[in-house]
């Protein structure tokens, strides 16, 4: 994986040796680069890079050397504006600075081992200002093995375990069984990525929020399974199937309430509102979903209406709340909301396609059997060739053979490919939402997560 970021510098003198070793090390740690390389590149023609000893008299020697080889006030063709073409009005006479950079490097590669820059005892990394004072920027790219995403996920898992551990057994045991059965942890990851976009990111508070968001998701699954009369989830019996509907309702309610409380206790009103509004959107969409089953399999518009609430709302809220908790700028928060909405919709479309896969881990044709809104079925239902047969089959009770036949017709119609392409289009749009903005090294994570959401088999 490669991740990129910018290091902003403010120089204060005409010639200045700015030791950036500590800041580069901080960037390595923030990105979680364990073993690999840090590429550093000056984005200026009068700002060079140097690795040497940070000893004030030595730095004085360097400055004197630069003055000797390219004296300030000397004669440089570059400063003869009359002979140059297209000279900006504010062009400084800085031929000496350009010539000095000839002796420095515009870019460096630094090795990273065990999360530390591999530098000798006396080595420091300098950004060398040759024409200051100015605002400067270094471009950084980090390449290699990143331990931090895993570490951040471990924080979330630990926090989930910690939050569950204090709950009464009657609710804890069934919820723990569901949480430990797996799940992609997409929403906690979105919280974590979102949190990297603000100046006050705190890993522990982020972990608390991420775990609470996952508990909300899990609580919706517990109630969903009761509503859909599902027997299995993540390869295990559902709470309703194993322990009865009364306990399923109570477990869902308990964790809705607990997650709400944990988030409120973080003390960020914007985060609390974001999650509360998402929970409301989920509930409204659940009701729409059930209501629309009367006109099963529905149409594209009603499908989007339900999916935006049931799936996309919490994914968008996860991105937004993570960023809000870290104090991200409102414009960035808005972009994240759109990213999350597009990603959530694409994610559900991919889920619909996965339902037709042998590798899904779910009973084949579960969506058809439960008459759940599903875009491949909507498209196949509208198909001139297979549509009439599907409509005929859906009219009656669906036995196993009928479910298999409907699934075959959907596959034959090309609807799975069509939905897959639509989902990939949404993912491309989601990634575009985050283009051109500073993402503090999280850009690759957002992009990878979005693509992984649709390129999956389970």
């Amino acid at each position, binding site marked *: 994986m490669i991740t990129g970021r910018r290091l902003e510098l403010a120089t204060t003198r005409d010639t200045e040796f700015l030791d950036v070793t500590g800041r580069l090390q901080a960037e390595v740690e923030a990105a979680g680069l364990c073993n690999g390389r840090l590429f550093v590149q000056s984005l200026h023609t009068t700002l060079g890079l140097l690795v040497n000893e940070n000893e004030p008299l030595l730095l004085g020697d360097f400055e004197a050397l630069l003055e000797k080889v390219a004296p300030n006030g000397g004669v440089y063709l570059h400063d003869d504006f009359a002979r140059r073409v297209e000279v900006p009005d504010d062009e400084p006479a800085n031929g000496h600075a350009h010539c000095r950079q000839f002796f420095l490097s515009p870019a460096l590669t630094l090795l990273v081992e065990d999360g530390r820059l591999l530098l000798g005892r006396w080595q420091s990394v300098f950004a060398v200002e040759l024409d200051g004072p100015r605002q400067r920027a270094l471009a950084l790219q980090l390449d290699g093995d990143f331990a931090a995403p895993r570490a951040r996920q471990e924080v979330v898992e630990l926090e989930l375990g910690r939050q569950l551990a204090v709950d009464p057994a009657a*609710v804890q045991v069934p919820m723990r069984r569901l949480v430990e059965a797996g799940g992609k942890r997409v929403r906690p990851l979105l919280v974590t990525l979102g949190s990297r976009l603000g100046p006050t990111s705190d890993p522990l508070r982020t972990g608390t929020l991420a775990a609470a968001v996952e508990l909300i998701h899990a609580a919706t699954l517990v109630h969903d399974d009761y509503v859909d009369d599902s027997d299995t989830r993540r390869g295990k019996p559902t709470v309703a199937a194993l322990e009865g509907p009364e306990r399923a309702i109570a477990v869902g309610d308990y964790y809705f309430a*607990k997650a709400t*409380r944990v988030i409120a206790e973080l*003390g960020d009103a914007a985060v609390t509102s974001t999650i509360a509004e998402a929970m409301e959107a989920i*509930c*409204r969409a659940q009701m729409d979903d*059930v209501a629309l089953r009367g006109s099963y399999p529905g149409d594209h518009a009603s499908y989007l209406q339900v999916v935006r609430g049931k799936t996309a709302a919490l994914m968008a809220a996860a991105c937004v709340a993570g960023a809000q908790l870290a104090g991200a700028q409102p414009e960035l928060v808005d972009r994240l909301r759109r990213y999350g909405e597009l990603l959530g919709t694409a994610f559900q479309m991919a889920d619909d396609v996965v339902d037709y896969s042998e590798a899904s881990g779910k009973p084949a044709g579960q969506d058809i059997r439960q008459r759940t809104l599903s875009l491949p079925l909507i498209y196949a239902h509208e198909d001139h060739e297979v549509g009439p047969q599907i409509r005929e089959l859906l009219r009656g009770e669906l036995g196993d053979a009928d479910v298999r036949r409907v699934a075959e017709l959907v596959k034959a119609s090309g609807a799975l490919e069509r939905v897959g392409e639509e989902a990939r289009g949404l993912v491309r749009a989601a990634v575009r939402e985050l283009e051109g903005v500073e993402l503090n090294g999280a850009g690759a994570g957002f992009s990878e997560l979005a693509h992984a959401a649709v390129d999956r088999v389970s």
Partner: protein
Amino acid sequence: MKPAVDIAERDLESLDALWSGGLGEAWEAYRDHHADGRVALAAALVETGVQLQGLGARTVPAGELLIGDLCLARASRLLADAGDTDLQVAFARAVERVAAQAAAKEPVSPIRELLHSALAR
């Protein structure tokens, strides 16, 4: 018929039918304990949601479960809008308590008493 003051259309969207079925009465009762109509509505929605879902009492149809979920979610949003974190925490603890009791098949505490205590804090 819902009152014209304090409650926005949005606050009762999809839940209008509950007003004459007990939500309105509950709202009036909570108004005596809190001046903010939205907070009173949040309390009434929590009470109605818990009752609809039959916590500790009965198995309910899927439709009632979902309406109950919407009541609880709406209450949470109203408290967030009101900006009262302490009340949000207290209300959530009340729901946690009755849900845990219901899950354990223990007698469920009266939710109105719990919410009154929360409002009195």
